[in-house]
């Protein structure tokens, strides 16, 4: 089920929260909404879920728009708001039943549905506890269960893993991934590894504007400058600077070699080569030919952190055509 967001603009008083945001998501996509705090992620989600209207622009879900078919739109969406608000005085089953009934789930299918959600979200042990007594991790699961109780076509999750411990984060991410195969998922986060781990596509938003919209792999790929390889060699008595470096430099495509010191008789080099080249084989041959011992060879990958940092700190709009502008200058 496609979610189409067109030219959304929203002002809070005179401050502009989001400016002319346009994107669309299809079934099977898990879209990561990434941005620094206050970038407009939550505002966009609140508009999609019909909580607040935009000043300009429109959102359509499968042809239903948020103004004229608000109820249909809300029926199709499962929403986990920021901070995961819950009713502390209700117990888990009561709350899920309440949500299910509001979504018009018929009386006979409520119980099987509750059972499934309790199982999927791992709430079995706490099902009869008051929500107010639950730990943060369990509350988050209750929030997710609530969002998915009616098997919605579109899931909108505002920071779904905030406050969870690493194990729980893993579980929730796997859960989202499984669900995401058959549904449309939009999740916001400011944790980059989350996007890397769960999302197939990422939109980076800063100061209310979309500055990047691409797949995570592509984004990383395009942002990679030169290839950088770290090499740790155990040598004989040859001097690394005067004897080894010249040999490495003569290898095909090597741009520069930097010597980073010797520790326990192991020399560390950082070798750069042009973007897109792969000199690992050559390096291995060099090691073998010179009867050295290879302890470590590591190819650094540009992390999404760096991409994110480059994009959000320059504050400029990013187009597919001018990736080169943001390339690291080394």
């Amino acid at each position, binding site marked *: 089920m496609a979610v189409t967001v067109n030219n959304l603009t929203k002002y809070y008083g005179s401050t502009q929260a989001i400016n002319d945001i346009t994107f669309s998501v299809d079934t099977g996509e898990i879209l990561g909404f990434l941005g620094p705090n206050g970038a407009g992620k939550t505002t966009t989600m609140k508009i999609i879920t019909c909580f607040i209207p935009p000043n300009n622009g429109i959102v359509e879900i499968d042809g239903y728009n948020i103004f004229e078919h608000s109820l249909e739109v809300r029926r199709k969406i499962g929403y986990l708001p920021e901070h995961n608000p819950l009713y502390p005085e209700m117990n888990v089953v009561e709350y899920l039943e309440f949500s299910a*009934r509001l979504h018009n789930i018929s009386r006979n299918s409520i119980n099987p549905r509750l059972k499934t959600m309790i199982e999927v979200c791992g709430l079995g042990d706490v099902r009869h506890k008051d929500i107010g007594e639950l730990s943060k991790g369990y509350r988050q699961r209750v929030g997710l269960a609530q969002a998915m109780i009616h098997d919605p076509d579109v899931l909108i999750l505002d920071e779904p893993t905030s406050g969870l411990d690493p194990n729980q984060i893993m579980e929730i991410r796997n859960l989202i991934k499984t669900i995401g195969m058959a549904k449309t998922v939009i999740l916001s986060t400011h944790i980059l590894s989350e996007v890397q781990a769960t999302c197939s596509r990422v939109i980076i938003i800063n100061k209310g504007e979309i500055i990047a919209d691409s797949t995570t792999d592509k984004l990383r790929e395009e942002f990679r400058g030169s290839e950088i390889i770290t090499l740790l060699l155990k040598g004989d008595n040859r001097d690394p600077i005067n004897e080894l470096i010249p040999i490495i430099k003569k290898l095909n495509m090597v741009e520069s070699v930097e010597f980073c010191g010797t520790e326990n008789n192991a020399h560390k080099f950082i070798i750069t080569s042009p973007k897109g080249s792969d000199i690992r084989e050559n390096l291995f041959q060099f090691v073998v030919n010179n009867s050295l011992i290879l302890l470590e060879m590591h190819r650094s990958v540009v992390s999404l952190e760096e991409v994110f940092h480059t994009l959000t700190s320059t504050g400029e709009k990013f187009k597919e055509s001018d990736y080169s502008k943001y390339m690291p200058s080394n």
Partner: protein
Amino acid sequence: MDFNKILIIFQKELKAYFNSTIAYVIIVVFLAIVGWFYVNNIFLIDIATMRPMFDSVIPLTFIFIIPAITMRQFAEEQKSGTIEILLTKPLSDWEIVLGKFLSSLALVAIMILPTVLYYISLALISDLDNGPILGGYLGLLLMASAFISLGLFASTLTSNQIVAFIIGMILILFLYLLDKVLIYFPGWAVTTIEYFGVDYHYSNLSRGVIDTRNLIYFFSLTGFMLYISVTSLEKRKW
């Protein structure tokens, strides 16, 4: 309007009243006040009558009890953020407001139900005029509806329950006192202003006179305030 949705909200709110201590505290306070005056009348003044209870005791108690009942309805949801859950579910603002309104009204009804015991005990020892008592209960429920709608509106304005309570009480007090301060208004305005006062219409009902003008007053006041509450909920859309 889906009656089923209203029912879901109604059940949730009524449960919330009784799952927390609010309902019990309110019922106990109410019965203590009303009971004290009831006992006073019989044993000290030696009259078997329910008039003071209907005329002043219960209405005066309503002035602070009802805002205490309604204050949490929206203020709490706005404070905890659950209003976002509620408003992004497939149900209309009217269904939410009506569900909450009916739950408060139900709590008031449950609260005044035990006073029927006073009636029964009095009826056993004396000859009571039943008309004013039936009219009185009807009047109480109608007045409670109007006060609840005012309190609900106050609750939509803020995320602070104390503020909601105070605003609610001021609104109720204003409408209740209106026909008690008529003396300060110029003669030509008196009848109009008197018509807006709650007590003017209530006293007719509690005398046992069920006049459509009074019914229309309560229905329209309640309806209008509920409409204003829905509008106030929609203020997020402005």
